[in-house]
């Protein structure tokens, strides 16, 4: 319930309200969105209010504008309406392209009220009948200006527009005076609003850059349909219309091109004359120069630094090298000295030996012995080391003639033995080299040292046939097969096998025949011995049969079964295991059983190894 006003009170403000404060709010909710949107648009109230404001401002302008009567109005020829200035006809020559639709409408209304034929008739004026009255011009004017497309066409060729572009010489003197009005004038063709201004001498680089990029990419709405020579509406048939359209389009394009050229020339001229651009360029140049200078200097400094570093390094290396050389020299000298000393000593000792031997007359009784002994002694002198020479001399010096003789002879024998050994070694080495040559030369014939006997060869052929080309890891498999089945006990690698197989391929047919024949013989021989076991043998036993060929009476399947059974029944921990096993297998001794067991174990191992090897290799 409100209070009652007291007498004498009036509406009054006492004090100022507290100022608003700023707080942070959560960025959620539709009201905040609306608020932010409003704020971003920089409007204090709702958008509608803003629009209302705009409308009101327009209205106020309306009140101000005045019409200027066109003095030539009555003399206008309606047939020549294309060349009339529509704005002048409507009395808006001062507003032209800036006139709003509202203003145009108002102007038209005013002018119609005054010049309508009916009005004039009422005023007692003579009216020309038909379309020839100048009122038609007014109608044409409003027709053109009220339609945005037509108005744009007319505006584009506005007769009052100055298309001139200042020349360079004009611009040089006073750039801003010359160009500012020109750009301002041409700004009206821009389809974008907010055309950047020329600016002043103080404009920043960004501003100038923005200005020129805008004008270089100038998007003009100016078009030249108003100047069309032929009117499309006048055409009588479709083809003619088309032809007219084509004509018009060509001329419009031509004009548009000219217009674009004009703008381009304008901007180019401005750009070339702009003192700011010159300044910026100079600045840029100076900056680049200084940068370059700095870079060059930095590089130079760096180079110097590097040179210095390298020099220092070289110096160090040189010093080190010199030192090394010096040391090496000294060491060499030392070694030489030592060697000299030793040489001298040996010489001395040899002399001593010779003299002693001479003193003893080379322990010989006759001349021949002496000569032989002399030779031997010479040999001794050559071959013996310093120490042994010394010891020999000592014995010679201390002992009697006989002792000395025996000592010398002993030495001589030793030396001879050594010589002999050396010679033998040499011979052996030579032989080895020769045989190695032979071996590397391809292993020659079937029986040449490498242990390829007939059996193996046969086995190889068999294996090669068994594992045809295309088998996975073929040669490894063959090698393993060979190792498993060979009786020669030779371990062969895949490489050996390949070599051999290649050799075999190269062998002359004669040799092949021979091998085949031999194989047949062998087969016959084997067949006769193995015959009893072969019909009931499993593959593993066949191998066994060939392996233990002739050593022991072969094991029959039953015996084998019994043995396996016995091995299972008597585990390793059983005391006197083998006796019991032997007891379980009739007709076999303990030794037989053990041997058989070992063989079996080896066989299984070999098989496993071969399989594993192949598996590993094929995995690789």
């Amino acid at each position: 319930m409100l209070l009652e006003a007291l007498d004498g009170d009036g509406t009054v403000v006492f004090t100022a309200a507290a100022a608003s404060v700023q707080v942070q709010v959560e960025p959620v909710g539709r009201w905040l969105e609306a608020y932010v949107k409003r704020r971003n648009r920089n409007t204090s109230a709702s958008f509608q209010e803003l629009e209302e404001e705009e409308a009101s401002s327009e209205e106020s302008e309306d009140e101000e504008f005045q019409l200027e009567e066109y003095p030539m109005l009555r003399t206008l020829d309606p047939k020549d309406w294309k060349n009339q200035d529509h704005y002048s006809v409507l009395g808006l020559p001062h507003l032209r392209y800036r006139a709003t639709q509202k203003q145009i409408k108002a102007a038209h209304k005013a002018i119609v009220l005054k010049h309508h034929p009916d009005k004039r008739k009422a005023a007692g004026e003579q009216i020309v009948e038909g379309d020839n009255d100048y009122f038609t011009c007014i109608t044409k004017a409003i027709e053109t200006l009220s339609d945005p497309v037509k108005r744009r066409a007319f505006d584009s060729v506005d007769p009052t527009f100055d298309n001139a572009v200042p020349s360079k010489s004009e611009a040089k003197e006073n750039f801003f005076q010359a160009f500012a009005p020109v750009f301002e004038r041409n700004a009206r063709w821009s389809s974008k609003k907010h055309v950047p201004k020329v600016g002043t001498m103080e404009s920043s680089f960004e501003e100038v850059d923005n200005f020129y990029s805008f004008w270089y990419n100038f998007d003009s709405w100016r078009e030249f349909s108003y100047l069309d020579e032929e009117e499309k509406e006048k055409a009588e048939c479709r083809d003619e219309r088309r032809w007219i359209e084509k004509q018009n389009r060509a001329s419009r394009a031509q004009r548009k091109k000219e217009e674009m050229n004009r703008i381009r020339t304008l901007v180019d001229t401005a750009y070339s004359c702009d003192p700011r651009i010159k300044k910026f360029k100079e600045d840029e140049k100076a900056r680049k120069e200084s940068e370059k200078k700095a870079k060059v200097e930095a590089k130079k400094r760096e180079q110097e630094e590097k040179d210095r570093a390298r020099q220092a390094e070289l110096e160090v290396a040189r010093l080190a090298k010199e030192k090394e050389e010096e040391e090496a020299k000294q060491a060499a000298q030392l070694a030489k000295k030592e060697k000299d000393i030793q040489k001298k000593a040996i010489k001395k000792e040899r002399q001593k030996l010779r003299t002693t031997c001479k003193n003893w007359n080379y322990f010989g009784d006759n001349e021949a012995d002496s000569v032989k002994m002399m030779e031997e002694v010479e040999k001794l002198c050559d071959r013996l080391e310093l120490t042994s020479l010394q010891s020999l001399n000592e014995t010679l010096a201390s002992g009697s003639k006989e002792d000395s003789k025996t000592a010398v002879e002993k030495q001589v024998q030793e030396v001879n033995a050594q010589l002999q050994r050396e010679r033998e070694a040499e011979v052996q080495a030579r032989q080895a080299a020769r045989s190695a040559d032979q071996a590397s030369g391809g292993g020659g014939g079937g029986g040449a040292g490498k242990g390829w006997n007939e059996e193996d060869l046969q086995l190889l052929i068999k294996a090669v046939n068994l594992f045809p080309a295309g088998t996975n890891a073929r040669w490894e498999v063959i090698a393993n097969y060979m190792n498993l089945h060979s009786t020669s006990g030779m371990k062969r690698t895949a490489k050996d096998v390949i070599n051999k197989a290649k050799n075999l391929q190269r062998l002359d047919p004669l040799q092949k025949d021979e091998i085949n024949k031999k194989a047949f013989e062998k087969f016959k021989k084997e067949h006769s011995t193995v015959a009893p076991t072969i019909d009931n043998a499993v593959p593993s036993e066949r191998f066994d049969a060939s392996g233990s060929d002739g050593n022991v009476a072969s094991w029959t399947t039953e015996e084998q079964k019994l043995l396996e059974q016995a091995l299972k029944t008597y585990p390793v921990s059983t005391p006197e295991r083998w006796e019991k096993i032997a007891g379980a297998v009739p007709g076999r001794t303990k030794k037989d059983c053990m041997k058989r067991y070992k063989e079996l174990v080896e066989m299984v191992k070999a098989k496993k190894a071969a399989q594993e090897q192949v598996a590993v290799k094929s995995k690789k």
Partner: protein
Amino acid sequence: MAAIGVHFGYTCACVAIYKDGRADVVANDSGDRVTPVLVAYRDTEQIVGIAAKQGRVRNAANTVGKVKQVLGRSFDDPETQTHKAETKCQVVNRGEKPYYEITAGDRPEYVSPSDVAKLVFHKLKETAQSALGSDVADAVITVPFEFAHAQKRALREAAEAAGFHVLRLIHEPAAALLAYDIGQDCHSGKSHVLVYKLGGTSLSVTVLQANGGMFRVLNTHTDHSIGGESFTQALAQHLAAEFKRTFKHDVSSNARAMMKLMNGADMAKHSLSTLGSANCFVDSLHDGIDFECNVSRARFELLCSSLFNKSIQPIRALLEQTGLSAGDINKVVLCGGSARIPRLQQMIRDMFPDVELLSSAPPDEVIAVGAALQAGLLVGRESLSPEEESVTVDVSATDILVKEVDESGAEVFTVLLPSGTPLPARRHHILSGGGKLSSLCLEIYQRLVAEQPEKLAKIILRDLQPREENHDIDTVVTMKRDGSVHVSCVEPSTGRSEVVAIAASS
């Protein structure tokens, strides 16, 4: 236009979609509306969600959880160190950033918290997109109020890496308010809302002021030491004691058994929110012994009574700090899964006897729904740049009052425009004056918080026609952005009007 709202919590994440003017939580591929924020690393795959939780007993060292605790933090941050001590996964320092050391594969892998968050976000995105049936990626993501800039950025980057187009990050309490459509009526006056969020590992209480459709956080309190897991822990301890009493085995040293027990206790706790008693059954808990135990709700409440008190306490302290009393709060919003506990709800209701307790929506989904609503608002509009996310607005500093008398003749003040109203603002009131009076006087006052009102202006309306019924005075109060007030009064029957403009002090 469809959009997605994501609540990425410490223990659980929830995703809601906005479609055809509605926001709904969507269930993930295992049928749950809430996805646990757990990522289990196996040698060939990463598992997100409930499957990771189920496999956690076996794969504890390679299961990463509560990644939000370390997201965007440096290694030396105390929070990181706490996380490192608690988590079962190895946390290592690489370039001052924490990384998880995952040993699932042949050699240890180092995974950054952002990568873990990315996987979770990816899962959420898939969930939302399968529900929408289109590849909409526009999303609003909620963050706790206390998140620092670096953490927000890390979260945003993780979400973007997962393929989301993040429209905005909004605070969790504000999202909860949106979900309940509080204060979204622009001309509603000022109101205070308390948002009580008790999640898996953290408690946060926030007081917000809603005015003119905008929310302002007045004060907030966060406690990372209490949450749903604390209750589970207490229950698990109890179960362990029961087991020991029955079978004479101590399982508290057996980490795996304790984890099983925690899972059992968790389930029992959930059922206790709706049932009077729950059965907890753990297969082969210790030494192959199966454990079965019945827990009543009363027992559970007794076990957790101190924890409940601890989680209620901050409300009082916060209100005191903010200078509000329990009566000033107009609404209380509950969120977070643990706010389902009936005893807690009862305790809060006791604290605010006259206040509407909003818990109609599932509390662990409220925030995601709010985020989805906000996403629906934002999608297809030009959005604020990230650094502009907290918006500053001009608000009125004082209440604008008019002096009136009540029936007994005592002076009362009626608020025309409350303080904190976003400016510019316009409020329309119809004031009534005695019908027999021929003149009325509107005395306009302003009042700073609790001070004595200061008289601003007096408006006199004269020459009214006395009549039987009361005079209705149309009063429009407008306040501009700078704080200047404009009051206009019109008596409709006679058309008599008075206008006063009060400038703002600068």
